[in-house]
């Protein structure tokens, strides 16, 4: 007998969706002078709202008010006072958490379970954690009285819109900087509700400015001479352009870029647990995760058994309405991204990898891609080397632990990695050998404000979170 799930949709009304959103500048919501954009629900392709965008002159104004706010208010303010503002933001985010979660799922396409249980609570936690640092920076290990950098220009991606805004804004404020943040073109809404919260928390005008827009607004911000620090999360391709454009300036830069994480399963791994971790590693957030476990490395002796279990488990994943609490995999964030995924998957087939795709039904409207697993992948294939940023897993095999490490490290990236084994000494050995900034052993995709996150090599530099993450926003 089959068990059907009854639909359990979260009410869309909770999102308080408005027909139009404006940018947040100098403490006010104002019309941007850029071309307004329409943000859509990727699960239905309907327009959610019109959002005003920034022009070059808006960016210039935002940087100037941020500079004024840093010089006159936020910089001179005592850490203890700054802390209280940031604590306020954390609390108000928690109060409006359900609204933020539903809005995030509408705008981004991610399942409500994820936005409700991961994105929003972790975002609030980031503010709460960093608030406490504001008056304790003398103890952060960067010498006495470490100084802020000034104005931080921050450009964030569409995969975790609110969470990335929190990762960027919270440490910047705690360290005494002011912020001009550009949310992603396709997901501007939750950052603008965060702006409402910031306004309600009575943060002094100009301390945080949120300017929606496309890449051109980001470029204006990055290249504005009044900005002292750039923090970027996004593709390695754009990260390189930013690093190049900052060459010869005094702007401090941190980059959190792409990845092609190896998730290594040794022959003694607890297989059922590993299967859950593999699924979480690649299908969490539709695979739109820079640290996704997109290369599965399985020890040859258990490959067949593991693959069978994996297919069985992935077949049970429910793809569909992001607002349904039973949904496991939501919508791909945009048509562009869907096309990229489809292209790389076609390449995988053309290069001779064996494709398996879940037979799950897909909604007729919206951007969806069924969970897909490629077996028989070799290291030279594009699906083993390039970030797909979608629900597509490439499976490779290995015979010895040394071979596993060599294959895992055979990438210009170095953001994350996974290890599955029951043997403690092997975990510590492998964790030590892997050239990646985050290593998950017998788990995957765990995030916490106290735990530094960031990459080796072409996955970027600088860390976010923990004491280590403060360095990015201090003149040290």
């Amino acid at each position: 007998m089959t068990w059907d799930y009854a639909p359990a949709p979260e009410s869309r009304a909770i999102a308080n969706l408005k027909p139009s959103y404006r940018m947040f500048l100098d403490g006010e919501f104002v019309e941007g002078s850029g071309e307004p954009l329409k943000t859509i629900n990727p699960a239905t392709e309907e327009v959610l709202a019109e959002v005003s965008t920034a022009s070059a002159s808006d960016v210039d104004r935002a940087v100037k008010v941020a500079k004024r706010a840093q010089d006159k208010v936020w910089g001179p303010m005592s850490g203890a006072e700054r802390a209280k503002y940031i604590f306020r933001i954390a609390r108000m985010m928690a109060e409006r958490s359900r609204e933020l979660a539903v809005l995030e799922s509408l705008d981004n396409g991610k399942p409500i379970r994820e936005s409700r249980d991961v994105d929003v609570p972790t975002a609030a936690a980031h503010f709460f954690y960093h608030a406490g640092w504001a008056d304790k920076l003398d103890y952060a290990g960067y010498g006495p009285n470490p100084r802020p950098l000034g104005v931080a220009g921050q450009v964030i991606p569409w995969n975790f819109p609110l969470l990335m805004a929190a990762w960027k804004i919270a440490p910047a404020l705690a360290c005494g900087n002011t912020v001009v943040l550009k949310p992603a073109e396709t997901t501007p809404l939750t950052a603008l509700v965060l702006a409402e919260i910031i306004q309600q928390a009575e943060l002094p005008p100009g301390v945080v400015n949120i300017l929606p827009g496309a890449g051109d607004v980001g470029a204006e911000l990055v290249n504005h001479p009044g900005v002292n620090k750039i923090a970027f999360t996004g593709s390695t391709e754009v990260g390189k352009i930013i690093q190049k454009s900052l060459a010869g300036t005094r702007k401090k830069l941190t980059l959190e870029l792409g990845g092609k994480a190896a998730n290594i399963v040794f022959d003694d791994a607890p297989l059922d647990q590993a299967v859950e971790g593999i699924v979480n590693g690649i299908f969490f957030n539709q695979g739109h995760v820079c640290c996704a476990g997109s290369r599965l490395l399985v020890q040859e002796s258990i490959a067949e058994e593991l693959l069978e279990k994996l297919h069985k488990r992935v077949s049970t994943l429910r793809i569909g309405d992001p607002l349904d609490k039973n949904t496991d995999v939501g919508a791909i964030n945009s048509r562009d991204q869907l096309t990229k995924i489809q292209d790389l998957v076609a390449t995988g087939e053309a290069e001779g990898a064996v494709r398996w795709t879940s037979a799950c039904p897909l909604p007729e409207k919206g951007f969806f891609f069924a969970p897909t697993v490629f077996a028989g992948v070799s290291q030279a294939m594009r699906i083993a080397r390039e970030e797909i940023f979608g629900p597509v897993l490439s499976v490779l095999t290995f015979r010895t632990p040394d071979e596993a490490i060599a294959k895992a490290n055979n990438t210009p990236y170095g953001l994350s990695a996974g290890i599955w084994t029951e043997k403690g000494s092997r975990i510590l050995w492998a964790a030590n050998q892997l050239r990646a900034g985050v290593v998950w052993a017998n788990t995957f995709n765990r995030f916490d404000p106290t735990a530094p996150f960031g990459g080796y090599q072409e996955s970027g530099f600088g860390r976010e979170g923990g004491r280590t993450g403060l360095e990015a926003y201090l003149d040290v």
Partner: protein
Amino acid sequence: MSERLSVAKTYKLYLGGAFPRSESGRTYPVTDSRGKFLANAAQASRKDVREAVVAARKAFGKWSGATAYNRGQVLYRVAELLEGRREQFIAEVASSEGIQAKKAASIVDAAIDRWVWYAGWTDKIATVLGASNPVAGPYFSFSVPEPTGVVGVLAPQKSSLLGLISVIAPVIATGCTAVVVTSQDRPLSAITLSEVLATSDVPGGVVNLLTGHTAELAPWLASHADVNALDLTGAPDELRAELEASASGTVKRVLRATEEDWAKQPDIRRLRAVLETKTVWHPMGV
């Protein structure tokens, strides 16, 4: 009775633990501060840079994998050997930097002490920069600093020994390996340092020293895909932006340092600059 004619030394590169001439066969004259000829130094080429990166990469696994205690001992041993060459360094620093022997002696002493200071950091930096992360869940999470890999170092142009040691010692103390372009016009103490390293327990390839024209060699180091980080300290001003732009091609960590007062006691900034942070998670439970 006539004075004895001294035996002049042929100055070479230090690459992978050996002392080759530049593959290009080129040399350039090195003079003292008054313009008097001192020696012909090897003028390294692009190919020498690439060989040096290969040697540094090859040495990285073992050096970064050595215990911090062992690295500390190996580096301390270098200080012992530096002390033994003290008089030679004083003479070289005095002639190349155009200063009195007394001043040169204080510089050499500071350089040796600087090396000892960094040697002591090898097994302490992880305690200072690492952490156990109090995450909100049933996981044990810890973060450790790890060496970033091969570091390209453009050594200070003016401070031929103290500056040089101040930029090399932190790199190798962390477990990174180095390809160093020495001071162009004052390379002799660097070459003597390479003789010290060669007779120490520092494995070949951990430090590679290239004498030559900084402006010619630096771009190859900045664009090399197997270099993880670039220290711009001794870069010519007009090249700094270009080198940094070139380093972005493979997202290198760039240390935008310049010539400074090397006599000043350093902080751990240079160690941090070549360290990554790795965070490891594991579930807790019965």
